[in-house]
């Protein structure tokens, strides 16, 4: 089961920094994704205005969520499908298992779904004798490696090409061991061939849904590979797994979001395949599943409506925030310990698993704000991180190192005369330690700083002391 391990962030992040293969992979992400997004944004003069529309559309949806969910459910029924409301992960797992058993499923193909990771559906199905087969290439790679995804768009971005080759050799044991896998095309062709038969064998196809449409009861998947389409067309049952906040009023509204999503995620004008699925196969269709089910997961989201964290529910899962985050660039996704990494993960993980189980994440940020500057729906991420920090402070669960000394500092800040006194003596002490050198490389109580940097010494008397001295002698500098 994908049990949250977010409280191990400090240790995992330090290990990540010391991992050369991971650092190589993260470097590639950083140098490509940032310019790719910029190129796409530059080509569309309306992009900034579209971000405003996308934000306003999401705010409207959240302000009318019950209405749109009910309309969606009605439309799914009218087109021959069924909606299953699941308040938590266990309910969703049991629902999916029951549906798979109804279909007599032995194997299930899967398109990429973060909700699937959230409820640990793969492990659960395996434990119950049903084999899940990941078809998204990145998910397939990490399934072979028994890893979890490290990015919400590219689950295997932490894996280098060399590592993929190694993994394929280890697992595709029925193939010629001496075959060349130098050319990455060979790797992809191998994955394509291996997975092709599995699509046809599967009894059930489980996909996610980036959005779902109230007007028509349709679920929407956005892929570049086409794996999601094969997953939901070939088996006899299609299960679309999604969460409540992804509903969109109309088909046209979906296109507003689609104009900002791929550009933000990969720098593409539109992802290769955007598919709207509605109900099971029609009587005259020559292909398609005979049954269509939507599993609608809550898992704590509804509790954030109407509260100070509501804006986090605007997220359209583009990944731009983590692509631009200097902390993510340094440590990658696994350090965050759960399904959603990076800036959005630092807000969402505490929300869904409890802030006491993810207490470092809201602090693992310099609050640089780059995430907010690229978010297509303008989520005020630094503000929401601060909200979690306030929550932790109030509940007394701020990790100790974060709290130390701050109450004292705040007290001084409210008492100017004493502040001046402390500042005067503090600077004298530091200059004593520096002893004429411009900076010190070891400083008691400041190990966090001096581990990697020298500490610049104070120039001399404090500004306030000098200013007061000048005023009293009547001279200005």
């Amino acid at each position, binding site marked *: 089961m994908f049990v949250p391990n977010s409280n191990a962030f400090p240790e995992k992040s330090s290990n990540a920094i010391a991992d050369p293969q991971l650092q190589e992979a993260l470097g590639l992400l950083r140098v490509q994704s940032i310019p790719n997004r910029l190129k796409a944004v530059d080509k569309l003069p*309306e992009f900034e205005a579209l971000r405003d529309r996308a934000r306003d559309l999401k705010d409207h949806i959240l302000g009318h969520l019950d209405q749109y969910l009910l309309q969606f459910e009605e439309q799914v029924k009218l*087109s021959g499908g069924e909606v299953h409301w699941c308040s938590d992960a266990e309910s969703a797992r049991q629902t999916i298992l029951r549906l798979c058993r109804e279909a007599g499923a032995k194997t299930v193909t899967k398109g990429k779904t973060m909700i699937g990771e959230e409820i640990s559906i793969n492990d659960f199905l395996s434990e119950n004798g049903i084999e899940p087969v990941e078809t998204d290439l990145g998910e397939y790679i990490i399934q072979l490696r028994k890893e979890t995804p490290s990015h919400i768009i590219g689950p295997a971005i932490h894996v280098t090409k060399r590592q993929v080759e190694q993994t394929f050799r280890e697992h595709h044991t029925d193939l010629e061991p001496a075959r060349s896998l130098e050319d990455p095309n060979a790797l992809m062709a191998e994955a394509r061939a291996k997975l092709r038969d599995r699509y046809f064998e599967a009894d059930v196809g489980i996909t996610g849904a980036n959005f779902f449409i109230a007007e028509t009861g349709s679920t929407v998947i956005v892929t570049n590979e086409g794996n999601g389409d094969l997953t939901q067309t070939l088996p006899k049952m299609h299960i679309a797994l999604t969460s409540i906040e992804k509903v969109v009023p109309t088909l046209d509204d979906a296109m507003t979001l689609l104009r900002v999503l791929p550009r933000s995620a990969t720098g593409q004008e539109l992802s290769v395949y955007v598919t*709207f699925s509605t109900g099971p196969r029609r009587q005259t269709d020559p292909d398609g599943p005979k049954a269509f089910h939507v599993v609608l997961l809550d898992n704590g989201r509804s509790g954030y409506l109407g*509260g100070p964290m509501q804006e986090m529910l605007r997220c359209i899962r583009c990944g731009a925030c983590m692509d631009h985050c200097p902390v993510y660039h340094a440590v990658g996704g696994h350090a965050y310990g759960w399904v959603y990494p990076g800036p959005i993960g630092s807000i969402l993980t505490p929300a869904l698993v409890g802030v006491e189980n993810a207490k470092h994440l809201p602090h693992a940020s310099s609050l640089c704000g780059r995430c907010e500057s690229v978010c297509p729906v303008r989520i005020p991420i630094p503000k929401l991180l601060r909200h979690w920090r306030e929550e932790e402070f109030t509940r007394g669960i701020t990790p100790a190192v974060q709290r130390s000394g701050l109450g004292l500092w705040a007290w001084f800040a409210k008492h100017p005369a004493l502040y001046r006194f402390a500042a005067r003596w503090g600077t004298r002490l530091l200059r004593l330690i520096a002893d004429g050198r411009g900076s010190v490389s070891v400083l008691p109580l400041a190990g966090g700083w001096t581990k990697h940097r020298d500490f610049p010494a104070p120039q001399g008397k404090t500004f306030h002391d000098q200013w007061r001295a000048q005023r009293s002698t009547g001279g200005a500098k």
Partner: protein
Amino acid sequence: MSTDRDRMLATIRAGVSRSNTKGAPKPGPLVPERGQQTGRALVELFRKQAEAAAATVVEVARAEDVPAAVADYLRGRNLPPQIRLSPDARVNALDWKSQPLLETSTGASDGHDLASVTPVLAGVAETGTLMVHSGAATPNTLHFLPETHIAVVYADELVGTYEEGWKALRAQRAGDLSKGAMPRTVSFVTGPSRSADIGKILLMGAHGPKRLHVIMVDAKRPRH
């Protein structure tokens, strides 16, 4: 005993009633200026965008020219002259016999077809995107299983924006796509299948077609 549905709706309703976006109006669409071309400029935009997404595009004057264009394309790339045709008359009623070296068959794909030829609902110039949908005449498997997908786009099927594409579909279904009127799938297809999951290297032909070839016919879709 309350169900998950009851509990979820109760919490959602309570949250919505407290929300500072309750009653927030829905914004209208913002259609990019780029999609507001017409005539020749529209065709050029479609071609430029489709090619930027790694599709190939040729133009022919009449529907009668399509079979030859298909044969040329396959020959030019050393691909076998075997195609699976959509049952739709826009493709199926063309004179394939004029190309005797082309082996044709018609219907859905079972995964063994190397190339398919299909019509489209619309070609959307804003991003060089094809709108296709499932159906008896347009099986979905033809859009996804073959290695090469050849799409025939007639001049009056070319539109500037996604919204106009939806409008075209609505027009076919008496203006209303709700209550089960939607085709089972409607797909927006922009270029061939690809993935950058292996070391961030962009590779074509992940699971869907490796090649997407668009034949634009400078004529209205035939009425059969």
